[in-house]
């Protein structure tokens, strides 16, 4: 019997080793993305696939690869990777019982990364752009419809699970802090998804569908003021009023690095010698160097792009519902770990022999150390979605144009620019330029 005791720390250590995730591979990739060296970043991410992304993080890998491939202009590769990510997210709804059981013993990183709701929605946004760049407006519209379906489903997804979890946590202790607002997601429409739908339908001459999408952009702003706290882009009004024989140039830019998750730790004292550690993932926005973006057309007008979607805000909002579930589960797990430590303390006090009392005390300390080490927040998330989407449009005579997208910092100096030479701007076609500055 005594021989089994050394096994316990060994098993716990093995669990902890498995649950540790390294993020060091991101450093080089982050630097390359920030410098606009997307091909280098893509090569790095592919090279780190084996070591940095275990099979349970395959969704994470495909999202990261798909986004960077898109930035690098590898639209086939991006489309394939984002498609893989989407299929894996669908399948991840079915949880592995064995891995799920280990999340109750160790932490949430033991389970397969299931993808966040905003990742599932925005992967279709970038895949729509991939298909369009590959010359398939029909394929782009398939992606737009998938966004619509996902947004419709989002509001019904977690309701019952949250109510049940909330009830069980409240029954355990009224001391545990809980924010009921946290479980209420107010994201029901994506202006960015609708805007792309408007452009693609317009290019197919389906003006009625385009009008519906344009009105949905307006509704997204009107109904979700907490996420769309900036004015509706003024160019939107002209998108469907293009005079006959004229052409429209649309510019869509993505700026800033998307948010990351950081750990927030709460410690609650349960008895004099026992405490409960709750480690939660919280969203943290990453600062962007880009203050505003302008497009200067050679020999023509300059237009200032306007924010269409704060993708970081949408990410944080859609994470709220899952965050509520994570919170409940973390509390339950931490309570279980603390309770076992308390039970061992009690057994130590009641033990008849001093040897047994000592053993129980050591085990209690060991359990507390294990709880402290194992309670780690699951900080996994895709890292290369942008923070903001900005749009602009200008009506021109059809012809050949050269223009520059300029990204300005807060000091008013240009921090990055992209040149588009001799672009044919045609009437009755979608003339869309995509710009990037993930800094």
């Amino acid at each position: 019997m005594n021989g089994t005791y050394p096994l316990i720390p060994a098993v716990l250590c093995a669990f902890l080793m498995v649950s540790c995730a390294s993020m060091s591979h991101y450093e080089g990739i982050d630097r390359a993305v920030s410098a606009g060296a997307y091909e280098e970043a893509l090569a790095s991410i592919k090279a780190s696939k084996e070591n940095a992304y275990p099979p349970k993080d395959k969704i994470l890998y495909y999202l990261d690869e798909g986004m960077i491939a898109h930035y690098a202009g590898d639209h086939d590769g991006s489309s394939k990777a984002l498609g893989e990510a989407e299929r894996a997210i669908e399948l991840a709804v079915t949880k592995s019982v064995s891995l799920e059981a280990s999340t109750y013993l160790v932490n949430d990183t033991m389970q397969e990364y299931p993808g966040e709701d905003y990742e599932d929605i925005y992967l279709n946004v970038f895949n729509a752009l991939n298909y369009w760049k590959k010359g398939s407006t029909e394929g782009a519209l398939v992606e737009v419809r998938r966004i619509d379906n996902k947004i419709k489903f989002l509001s019904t997804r977690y309701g019952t699970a949250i109510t049940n979890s909330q009830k069980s946590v409240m029954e355990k202790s009224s001391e545990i802090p809980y924010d009921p607002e946290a479980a209420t997601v107010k994201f029901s429409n994506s202006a960015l998804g609708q805007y792309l739908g408007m452009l693609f339908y317009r290019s197919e001459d389906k003006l009625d569908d385009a009008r519906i999408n344009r009105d949905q952009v307006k509704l997204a702003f009107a109904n979700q003021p907490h996420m769309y706290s900036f004015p509706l882009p003024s160019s939107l009004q002209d998108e469907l009023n293009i005079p006959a024989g004229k052409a429209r140039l649309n510019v869509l830019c993505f700026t800033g690095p998307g948010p990351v998750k950081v750990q927030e730790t709460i410690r609650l004292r349960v008895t004099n010698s026992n405490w409960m550690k709750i480690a939660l993932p919280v969203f943290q926005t990453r600062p962007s160097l880009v203050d505003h973006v302008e497009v200067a057309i050679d020999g023509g007008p300059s237009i200032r792009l306007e924010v269409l979607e704060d993708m970081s805000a949408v990410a944080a909002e859609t994470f709220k519902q899952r965050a509520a579930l994570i919170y409940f589960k973390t509390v339950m797990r931490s309570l279980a770990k603390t309770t076992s430590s308390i039970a061992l303390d009690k057994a130590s006090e009641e033990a008849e022999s001093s040897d047994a009392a000592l053993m129980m005390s050591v085990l209690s300390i060991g359990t507390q150390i294990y709880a402290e080490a194992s309670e780690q927040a699951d900080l996994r998330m895709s890292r290369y979605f942008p923070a903001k989407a900005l749009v602009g449009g200008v009506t021109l005579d059809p012809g050949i144009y050269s223009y520059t997208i300029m990204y300005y910092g807060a000091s008013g100096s240009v921090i990055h620019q992209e040149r588009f030479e001799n672009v044919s701007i045609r009437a009755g076609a979608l003339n869309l330029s995509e710009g990037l500055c993930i800094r």
Partner: protein
Amino acid sequence: MKCRILMLSACAAAVLILAACSSGPQVSRVDAETQTDLSGYWNDTDLRTVSDSLIAECLSSPRVAAFEKNNGRLPVVIVGTFRNDSDEHIDTSIIAKKMEAAILNSGLADFVASRNERSEIREERQEQQSFASEDSAKALANEAGADFILTGSVKTIVDKAGKTATRTYFVYGELTDVETNKKIWMGENNQIKKIIKTPSAKF
């Protein structure tokens, strides 16, 4: 005793691990008509169901049959676009090709090359003018014009709650008179409705 149990357990585990490892994928051949629903998305069974029903409708259309009677020749049909208006990446050209083959083989209509196929044939004809013998080179500007154009679309309606989703497919086919824009046949298939239940747990 304890040692023997341990040994036996280790052997059983080794056998299980070895059984799980195989040198390559397992392949088994099935009848092409076998229904294979794996993901709930559009598959070959759906394609077969839809094509068979649309082809049957088209071939039994009285207006299509009346063309030969009124004009003394078979109608000439060109395959246009089958639009994918669904939320899946479906290769709709397979539906169009299946319909083209079935209608052509029924002897009810002649088909001319579609827009995509034409350029290759025209290029070949153009080259024949320079490189083929005079009596075997085919004449230019002698193409048969199509009487009707075959077009269609696929749409989906998706509803989802919890881990259950329904997918309904609406597939349309149309024959339109190229000269008058009159639609002479229109078929619809909405027989495909799937309920997809995603399991909550796996081992």
